[in-house]
């Protein structure tokens, strides 16, 4: 799960659903990002099946990516239940395809993912190839010239460490930015989310750290953030559980909530 560039292999989707109460988790998040980080044997069919499984019971926007390089792959992903595609290397090697995807599905369907490591270097191809362009200039190009809807900014050095987000990355953003910025890489505990969401340059905080998926950590984090006055959308998670199967069992919720 963790994109930790020193990958932690944890198991397939069935393992995930069995060991983590995903249905509970699904009601604690605003959006889900699913990235295929397989290197040797990328299998788009299998990934699309995984997305379909995750879509059941997950009623928030789903973004999926990992190795998408052309409009056909993007289309398959979007037909499997994803609402947006995450593009990283394609921004560098297949910009024509990025334009094709934007033309067909709209630029708000595209999340531009940028991986940054020490020395403000941008890495593509699962962190194996460094770009000559510096991070600041690359980010400017991505958000100002490319047809993308959101920026997902990931710190490779913090990814999987649980040591907190690298807020210095935000200095690489242009002064005026027209799209949501999601910060990723390093979240290990509740305080990290607070710091992230209290930062004016951050629109969303992302976590892939397994530790955050254990028990009801995310649920409590959400309650905590809301109680601190951080503006997250509200919904009633307990009610969601009560609604399961309600139509078929002909129950009516008659009391006014």
């Amino acid at each position, binding site marked *: 799960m963790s994109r930790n560039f020193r990958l932690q292999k944890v198991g397939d989707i069935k393992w995930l659903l069995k060991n983590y109460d995903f249905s509970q988790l699904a009601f604690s998040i*605003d959006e889900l990002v699913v990235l295929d980080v397989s290197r040797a044997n990328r299998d788009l069919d299998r990934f699309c099946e995984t997305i379909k499984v995750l879509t059941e019971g*997950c*009623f928030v926007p789903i973004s999926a990516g990992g190795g998408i390089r052309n409009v056909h792959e993007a289309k398959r992903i979007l037909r499997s239940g994803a609402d947006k595609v995450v593009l990283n290397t394609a921004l560098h090697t297949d910009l024509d395809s990025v334009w094709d995807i934007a033309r067909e599905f709209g630029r708000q369907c595209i999340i531009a993912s940028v991986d940054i490591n020490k020395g403000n270097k941008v890495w593509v191809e699962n962190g194996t190839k460094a770009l000559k362009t510096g991070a600041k200039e690359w980010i400017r190009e991505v958000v100002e010239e490319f047809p993308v809807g959101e920026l997902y900014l990931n710190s490779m050095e913090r990814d999987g460490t649980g040591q907190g987000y690298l807020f210095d990355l935000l200095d690489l953003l242009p002064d005026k930015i027209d799209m949501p910025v999601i910060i990723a890489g390093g979240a290990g505990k509740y305080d990290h989310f607070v710091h992230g969401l209290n930062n004016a340059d951050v629109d969303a905080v992302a976590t892939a750290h397994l530790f955050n998926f254990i028990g009801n950590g995310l649920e409590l984090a959400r309650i905590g953030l809301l109680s601190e006055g951080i503006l997250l959308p*509200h*919904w009633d*998670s307990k009610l969601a559980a009560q*609604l399961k199967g309600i139509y078929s069992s002909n129950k009516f919720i008659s009391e006014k*909530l």
Partner: protein
Amino acid sequence: MIAIVDYGMGNVYSVASALRYLGAKPILTADPELVAAAEHLILPGVGSFRNAMTAMRERGLDAAIHEAVESRGAKILGICLGMQLLGSSGSEGGDTAGLGLIPNSTNEFLKTESGLTLKIPHVGFDTVNINSSSGIFQNLPSEADFYFTHSYRMLVEGLSGKIGTCSYGVDFLAAFDAGSVCGAQFHPEKSQTNGLVMFNNFLQK
């Protein structure tokens, strides 16, 4: 029979998934005969108004929807572009006539509205102010959060009755319940509990 109209535009699987969670068994169809015979219709949609109306006309789905709703008493819920298609016309891709089930028209968000510079499209969770607690709005708080992603919007215009509005530069029409014709500009299938509540309310009609 609950039918999700699948004319090739829109995340029909997520809508189906939400209905299945509730215990319903919707069919996904582009067959005008099935659409005309359904008791509950859901019309999703993402993309251009013009392309959508063309896609529906090519398959005879516009006539099927009219028959279902106007002759057979079916209920219809339009989602996102699907809600806009229920109206009189839309300007995306050039002025195009809609299904005309409500009189409102659809136009683009202006980059500057009420003196504010807006980021278009309007994307993310936002708060809807609801004036009713019945119909599709039953059991929802009067200020409820839903997920939006759109560049075009309907205004309230003369529409009366059960409506929800959202403020983005202008107060636009976020949802309505006009009896057998209902609409949501946001995505109930992407709006957690509030969306599930709304789907359940619609299916109980």
